[in-house]
């Protein structure tokens, strides 16, 4: 990407954000100060940013892993939900054995995410069904599944609302610093992002994955196992998103409810795009989106700017990039 493009998109996004702040009748300086205060201004604020980062970083890395292998996995939302549902199912089984309960969640959530992606991977390779179509359908099925689970098998009989039984306090991850919501989950997400970056850019497997994504026919002609590579990337992507859902339950919510996400799977894709489709760039964008989200409540409370600004700004930035980059090659990711 050219530096000039990046600069133009950044300037355009800042200009649009300033315009929206002015439209809301606030001063841009006040709004920026409130946003920064809400995102980083205190231990609690920084902890909130870190806590919100976990799911976004993992879905962003999940998007990168799939997209770089040429798989348009739009099913991150459903895979995230599958992981959260698995965590809510196995987490309460061992209320007095924190280690066992956490291990069960950390194993079950990625597995559920991969299983949620598996039908789409199979359809893509065996039936030539574009993953875009199958994963959108699977997202619907996952959302309906959550609706059913929290009212049926997983329902907490003690609760007034349809929600799952809570994980015990002993099982939930403890904050890294007292008074902040961040747990070790965010560190795990960042470590996985670094591992994915290493794997994609420094290993033969990563090279093969990128080759299959960029030039599938050439990769196949060169003797690469393209079907296995694509399917593996698809399942790994689902596993990462599923882990994101599981960690959301284990570190933050302690249970499953309906609706469980406000589109973290789709935001992860946007973060990956803004990060130039690299794991570290995607992770950085994920943290940026989380900071915007955490800062947005202070933005609304202290500066009178609707908190939705925090979801408009990243979307505008990504649209700007898409407009600047434009066209695809004939043998693109599909």
């Amino acid at each position, binding site marked *: 990407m050219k530096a000039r493009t990046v600069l133009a998109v950044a300037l355009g996004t800042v200009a649009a954000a300033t315009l929206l702040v002015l439209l809301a009748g606030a001063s841009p300086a006040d709004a920026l100060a409130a946003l920064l205060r809400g995102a980083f201004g205190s231990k609690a604020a920084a902890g909130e940013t870190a806590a919100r980062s976990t799911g976004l970083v993992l879905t962003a890395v999940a998007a990168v892993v799939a997209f770089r292998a040429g798989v348009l996995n739009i099913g991150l939302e459903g895979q995230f939900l599958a992981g959260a549902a698995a965590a809510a199912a196995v987490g309460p089984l061992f209320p007095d054995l924190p280690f066992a309960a956490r291990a069960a969640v950390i194993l079950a959530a990625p597995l559920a995410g991969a299983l949620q992606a598996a039908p789409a991977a199979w359809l893509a390779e065996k*039936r030539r069904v574009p993953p875009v179509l199958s994963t959108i359908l699977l997202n619907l099925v996952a959302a309906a599944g959550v609706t059913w689970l929290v009212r049926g098998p997983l329902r907490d009989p003690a609760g007034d609302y349809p929600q799952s039984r809570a994980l015990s306090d002993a099982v939930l991850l403890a904050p890294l610093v007292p008074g902040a919501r961040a747990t070790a989950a965010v560190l795990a997400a960042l470590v996985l992002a670094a591992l994915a970056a290493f794997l994609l850019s420094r290993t033969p497997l990563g090279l093969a994955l990128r080759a299959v994504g960029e030039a599938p026919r050439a990769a196949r002609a060169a003797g690469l196992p393209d079907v296995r590579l694509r399917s593996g990337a698809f399942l790994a992507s689902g596993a990462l998103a599923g882990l994101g859902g599981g960690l959301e339950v284990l570190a933050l919510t302690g249970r499953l409810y309906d609706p469980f996400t406000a589109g973290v799977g789709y935001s992860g894709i946007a973060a990956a*795009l803004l990060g130039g489709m690299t794991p570290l760039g995607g992770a950085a964008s994920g943290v940026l989106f989380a900071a915007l989200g955490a800062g947005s409540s202070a933005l609304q409370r202290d500066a009178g700017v609707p908190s939705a600004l925090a979801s408009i700004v990243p979307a505008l930035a990504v649209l700007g990039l898409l407009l600047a980059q434009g066209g695809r090659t004939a043998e693109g990711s599909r």
Partner: protein
Amino acid sequence: MTGFVEIALLLAAPLLIAATGELLLERAGSIQIGLEGTMLVGAFVAFAAGRGGLPPASSLAAAALAGFLAGLLFALFAVARRADPILVGTVWNLLALGATAFAYRLAAGETGAVLEVRTLPRGLFGVPDAVLASFLAPVVLHFWLARTRAGLRLAAAGENPEALRSLGLSVVAVRSGAAAASGVLGALGGAMLILTVSPTFVEGVTAGRGFLALALVVFARWKPLALLPAALLLGGVTALQYQLQAGGFGLPYAFFIALPGLVALGALALASTRGGAPKALGSAAP
């Protein structure tokens, strides 16, 4: 049970009109997975127009205009600039969700009061004319695609864009037109929701209906007439859920909401090649 039939029709119409628009665009070879966002924009514009004092029919027209612009915007990115439509659509959803929430907050202020708008007047069968017209839309599209020169050209842009181009016709123009029409129908779907069953706006008021409409297109195997029974079934099931609000009904409702997704997945798995999808679906224009 007249109440039931009426509610079922009212709930089916937004899905049906939005799915008809999406089907039109996909038959032209592009795809807008941001239909949820377009519906949301239509819902908000209809709400804002209603609060601004416009009569319901004019609110519907205002939403259509917004949808037209949204469709052209999509075409600028995904057709003319040839950015990947999947990525454009994903981001469009996020933008529409944020922008409508932002605008609603500015328009409604801090009050937690429920702001309502007037709904469309009832006509034949106790439902507004626009709702009845929605049921004609797939029929009209069916004959238009099969019987008119313009319809055949549109389908050619989705099946064999190179051939269209070799006739000296612009694939970009055909798909852009389809995107604009599809934007109009998607926004009308969102607006109809506000102007019939839920006459107020809340963040994300469309509640996944855009994704459901996308599933209906696959379920219908890109055949307009097949949208009718599918949308009616979903409308009926949702109306039933409204009538039996009491607890314990979670399983069948969730099952029926998942049903179009499950059946469409099954159809894709069983069909020989891509389940009847247009051959050039999602491709860049030549």
